[in-house]
């Protein structure tokens, strides 16, 4: 096999077989994993529906924190939270609230979110 058209033809055959095998193997694995799920504990499915419900509640709350939201309301909430935490006899006054640049890596954020959702 030295001439170009012949090599290209063989290349197309390899591509067809190759992609075919890749898809076949991975689709096979994907369905085998479905079967595997049946064997493992069934308790997980209940928890999942509960979690998705919580997801839906969570979203509007997060949207409100976005910069476009009502700044005054946000400050009131933060001040109230601090007041509740410090108790009545605290002389602390909230003078200014500044947004701090969030440098947390994405992995840590995901982890934190998962922890929160699992506690709720």
């Amino acid at each position: 096999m030295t001439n170009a058209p012949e090599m290209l033809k063989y290349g197309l055959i390899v591509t067809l077989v190759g992609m075919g095998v890749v898809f076949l193997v991975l689709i096979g694995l994907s369905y085998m994993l479905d079967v595997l799920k049946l064997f493992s504990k069934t308790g997980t499915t209940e928890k999942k529906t509960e979690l998705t419900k919580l997801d839906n509640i969570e979203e509007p709350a997060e949207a409100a924190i976005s910069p476009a939201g009502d700044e005054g309301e946000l400050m009131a909430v933060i001040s109230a939270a601090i007041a509740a935490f410090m108790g009545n006899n605290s002389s602390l006054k909230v003078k200014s609230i500044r947004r701090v640049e969030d440098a947390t890596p994405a992995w840590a954020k995901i982890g934190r979110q998962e922890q929160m959702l699992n506690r709720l």
Partner: protein
Amino acid sequence: MSLVNALYDFFLTMGFSAITWQEIVMLLISFVLIYLALVKGFEPLLLLPIAFGMLLANLPLAGLNAEPIYEIVTNPITGEHTHKMVDSGGLLYWLYRGVKLGIYPPLIFLGVGAMTDFGPLIANPRSILLGAAAQFGIFTTFIGALALNFVPGLGFTIPEAASIGIIGGADGPTAIYITAKLAPHLLGPIAVAAYSYMALVPLIQPPIMKALTTKEEREIVMEQLRPVSKLERIVFPVLVTVVVSLVLPAAASLVGMLMLGNLLREAATMQSTLNRLMKTAEGELMNIVVIFLGTTVGATANGELFLSPSTLAIIFLGLAAFSVGTATGVVFGKVMSKMTGGKVNPLIGSAGVSAVPMAARVSQRVGQEANPSNFLLMHAMGPNVAGVIGSAVAAGVLLSMCNI
């Protein structure tokens, strides 16, 4: 007079007297790569050893790559012929045996397996398909390399084209494994192209992802993945090894070691003594192999072979491989999004081109740009780790069909 002679003789033993222009250019390239690795942070873990290996190999007269020289001697009493080593060869020659014989890449896979959490993939088995779709990059590049045979002056044989295509798998060890078996003379350019593009994934992928998706699609929030049981985590590596190795024996050493590493990781929570093996696999063993692999792969970048039009073609084809893989992954993601009624964000499709975990992080970033409360990272890790299995399977096919 004798002093001049002595000085001249000494000059002849110096590298300066024997250096060729190709070697000078290669030294300059290695300086650039060292700069890219250290200052720009391009996959420094591998690119630095590769660059330094390149530097070592192109120092004239140092003979680090020299083959050992044997002499056949006849035993005067028995008349038997035996080998006698006259020169033991260079250091890099011997370290390179691990690449040549296909030992280092599977050992790296052992470490990768020990570091990889296949949980997101087990939780959402359909995401495996995205890891398959992104492998189109490998095969279109393979065809592209063969099509270059129509261009006068360029030309790749089938094994060479297969080795170039595998760059699209975005998987360094796999690319090195295949190339060492099919076209070892191209190892230098292919390894450099594969690792440089992997470092450039955050630059290459986002424009393609944005061009192929609408803002509404990028905004899709996916529901949290279900927790995965211990049983599933343990059975998964065993299952994958058996299935893949029975279908494709050529992929057994890569997939087998990957899954052994993963089994060590998952089993370490059951039998705490296994923790030691896991720690070694993902730590010291991996680091040692990375040093050997990087340096010796870099050392294959011989000036005369590296500085040729085919290297430029490989670098261009490698970029095409990454781009096509990203595009087909995203397109397949769109199909899945439509089929599930908008439950899948097509952005996770681009993570199918292995490059763990960089490609998943890119999906996360592009998704969050469109919708700040979008967390795609774990969803993208499914196709991402499936991409590793997918490219190992594709590598197995290329090995068994292109070894001619």
